[in-house]
């Protein structure tokens, strides 16, 4: 797919007819970036780099953001695509020099800032290899998928997708005014319908996402990573290009397409960040086959560590919390919670499970099938019967889609309700979540960032009557099919992660530890 990127760099290379050295290309990129930055002055301060001690100090002489799209926002697609000229890393040999320069500059900045700021943040700077992002004001660019009500952002997205030859999906149906900033798509019109040329693996994957065949954040992340492995396998470095820079550019249209099929989850965002970092860390003298093999091994180890082994670790901790005679309540379908329950059953714990389900997705039936196949005793209710069933329950196990930095748990819609009623009945609520789902975003309600599913899912036929059949014709009637909601941390008693059992409020600590490790 080398021809699908209309990169200006390529055209410049071809125009001069000579092979530019890497330094010259780098200089070209810097100039271009500066030019772009001066044009985009009104868009606010550019992205800050968080990894590897890169400076986020806005130094006009050097491009401030060397971000290889490592962003905290869940849609790295947009920013990465727009910044891909600078997305590739510098060659390894000058990295160390730059890093040293930047560290020196940071230290001087920090010294000046210490005079202004209070002691709380000085502890961060006292560390020798300090994370500079503690002190820098971090302003992230808004992800595109929450700016649907902004026509300028929509135009920009349309232009970007056109450049990447990714079909743009149009919104469907009347949107409730509170959610006019979000997309609302119809399942009957997936973007794969508009694919005219060859169908690739990521098109299949996108279709599976949009139709709900692959659902659940673990499954989606694993699917994504496998698709990327295939892309890396099929990739051939074009001449005059470096694998570490070009491959990242190749991935961007795939990521755009997938996010058009279904907005990316937090876990997918973290996985993409990891891959891009790994790709950009490939030393330039590495041969192509070797690099590809290394990357595939990286992806495999990521899946293994962060998902499979993490779930083993979480099961081990969680099984300690399950005692004989327990009545455990679960909601919807979480692969992790199912795994925990099956493991506990194999370890001869005696308990029974109550599965709570809700319309319109009815994912609880899938959980029910899996548990019944194992032989676990189950009861099934709908979420409206929660007050009836809760007095029998001794513990509630919930899965999570993401854990936000302010301690809120983002999960399937209805989870917060379960936590609320469980709290009213004094039943402990345990959330199980792998650390790769932790994200730096903060959110206090379910409105500002969410996903709207197909509103036609709410229509149901009972006794031969479908009341909402023609809801589109009635202009004051709207259907709202939310996918996620956020649970405040005071409803959650414990979070079980692969690092241990932590309270909800320790999520930013874990994030910081992870950042330092990387």
């Amino acid at each position, binding site marked *: 797919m080398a021809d699908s990127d209309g990169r200006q760099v390529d055209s410049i290379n071809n125009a001069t007819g000579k092979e530019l050295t890497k330094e010259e290309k780098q200089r070209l990129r810097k100039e271009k970036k500066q030019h772009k930055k001066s044009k985009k002055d009104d868009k606010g301060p550019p992205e800050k780099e968080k990894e590897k001690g890169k400076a986020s100090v806005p130094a006009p002489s050097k491009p401030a953001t060397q971000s290889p799209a490592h962003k905290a926002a869940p849609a790295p697609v947009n920013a990465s695509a727009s910044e891909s000229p600078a997305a590739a890393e510098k060659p390894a040999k000058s990295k160390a020099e730059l890093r040293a320069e930047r560290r020196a500059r940071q230290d001087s900045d920090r010294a000046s800032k210490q005079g202004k700021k209070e002691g709380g943040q000085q502890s961060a700077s006292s560390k020798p290899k300090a994370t500079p992002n503690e002190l820098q004001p971090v302003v992230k660019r808004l992800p595109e998928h929450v700016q649907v009500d902004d026509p300028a952002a929509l135009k920009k997205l349309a232009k970007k997708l056109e450049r990447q030859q990714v079909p743009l999906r149009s919104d469907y149906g009347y949107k*409730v005014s*509170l959610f006019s900033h979000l997309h609302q798509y119809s399942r009957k019109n997936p973007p794969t319908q508009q694919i005219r040329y060859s169908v690739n693996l990521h098109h299949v994957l996108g279709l599976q996402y949009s139709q709900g065949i692959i659902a659940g954040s673990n499954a989606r992340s694993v699917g994504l990573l496998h698709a990327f492995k295939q892309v890396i396998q099929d990739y051939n470095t074009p001449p005059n290009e470096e694998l570490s820079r070009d491959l990242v550019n190749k991935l961007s249209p795939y990521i755009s397409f997938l996010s058009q099929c279904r907005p990316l989850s937090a876990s997918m965002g973290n996985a993409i960040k990891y891959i891009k970092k790994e790709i950009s860390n490939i030393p330039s003298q590495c041969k192509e086959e070797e690099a590809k093999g290394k990357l595939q091994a990286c992806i495999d180890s990521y899946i293994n560590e962060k998902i499979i082994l993490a779930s083993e670790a979480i099961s081990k901790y969680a099984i300690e919390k399950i005692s004989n005679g327990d009545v455990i309540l679960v909601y919807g379908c979480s692969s992790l919670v199912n795994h925990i329950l099956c493991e506990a059953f194999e370890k001869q714990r005696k308990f029974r499970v109550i599965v709570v389900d*809700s*319309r*319109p997705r009815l994912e609880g*039936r899938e959980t*029910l*099938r899996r548990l*019944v196949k194992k032989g676990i005793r*189950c*009861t*099934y*209710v*709908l*979420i*409206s*019967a*929660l*007050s*009836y*069933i809760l007095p029998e329950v001794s513990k509630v196990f919930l899965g999570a889609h993401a854990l936000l930095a302010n301690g809120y748990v983002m999960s*399937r*819609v*209805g989870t*917060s*309700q379960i936590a*609320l*009623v469980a709290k*009213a009945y004094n039943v402990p609520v345990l959330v199980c979540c792998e650390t790769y789902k932790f994200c730096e975003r903060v959110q206090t*309600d*379910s*409105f500002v960032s969410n996903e709207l599913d197909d509103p036609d899912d*709410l229509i*149901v036929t*009972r*006794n031969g009557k479908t*009341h*909402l059949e023609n*809801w589109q014709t*009635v202009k*004051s*009637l*709207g*259907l*709202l*099919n*939310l996918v996620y*909601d*956020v649970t405040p941390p005071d409803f959650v008693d414990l979070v079980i992660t692969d690092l241990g059992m932590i309270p909800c409020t320790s999520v930013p600590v874990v994030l910081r530890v992870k950042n330092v490790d990387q």
Partner: protein
Amino acid sequence: MPSLLHQFWVDLLQDLPRFTETLVKMPGADKETDLSERIESFLSELKRCGSGAGSLRGSAETARETTALLRRITAQARWGNAGDLMEIIRKEGRRMTAAQPSETTVGNMVRRVLKIIREEYARSRGSTEEADQQESLHKLLTSGGSSEDNFRQHFAHLKANVIEAINELLTELEGTTDNISMQALEHIHSNEVIMTIGRSRTVEAFLKDAARKRKFHVMVAECAPFCQGHEMATSLSKEDIETTVIPDAAIFAVMSRVNKVIIGTQTVLANGGLRAVNGTHTLALAAKHHSTPLIVCAPMFKLSPQFPNEEDTFHKFVSPHEVLPFTEGEILSKVNAHGPVFDYVPPELITLFISNIGGNAPSYIYRLMSELYHPEDHEL
């Protein structure tokens, strides 16, 4: 229902020879059979329409029919004094409540009529009403004899008075929904977001009345598994009210933007709590968490002297087939599925009751109840 119609014609043709015979029989006996037939048909209707999918008719209709039937019993049954009449009504009332225990309006109407009879009797005797009503300790100590014997006196005009009082009760029942809707503008202002759950005819009339003058937004929780919220939403949107249907799972998620929660209920219990459609307790807890006022629109005939009980708080279930359909056959046999119909909402979560006599706090319900029913009638 072709089978019923067919049955009707078959019955008519079969009864025709007997009917002509009855014309020469005593009119009293004819009225009795007619009366018992009506009672039987009413009982079978009650048994049939309590499927939990929302009764085929609303509670208001049930209340009206019950009262009309009780008036007929008063008019046509044979009784000599107030005590006899009360016995008859109590007996029929027990049968009616046994036919459909969840339909509490039937029992409530029976108790109202019993109270009417007591009042009319007391008035005929000439004693003041208040003396009989007060159950103070002083009264208990000094009264001495039981009040049962008091109902044995015969009064000529008692029948007419009782029937007149029951007619007044019927007119009151006719006007309840209108009385409640008239108060709508006092409670809803412009640009509000109101949340409701399921389908309540009272709340529907309430919101439609307010919508004539004010513009606001309504969110309806659909209330699985019967999804009556859909019907409510289509009906409201026809009056140009901005309506949104949300699934039950999203109640807490959207609650932060809701200004008021207005719900209907099946029964108001004696402690001020509610027995309402399932999902209401979650709604009430979410409203409490966000400090959103919870307003219950309930006419007075829904007020029941029962207290919530551990055993029968959730005493009505529907077939688990509604919850887990038979298409899931292979796991059905190994799974327990529950489909409770009602929820109990404790009075602490309720802010206001709006009834046809005005607005009240939940703490005042016990007093209203003592005005409507006599304490001896609490157990039919």
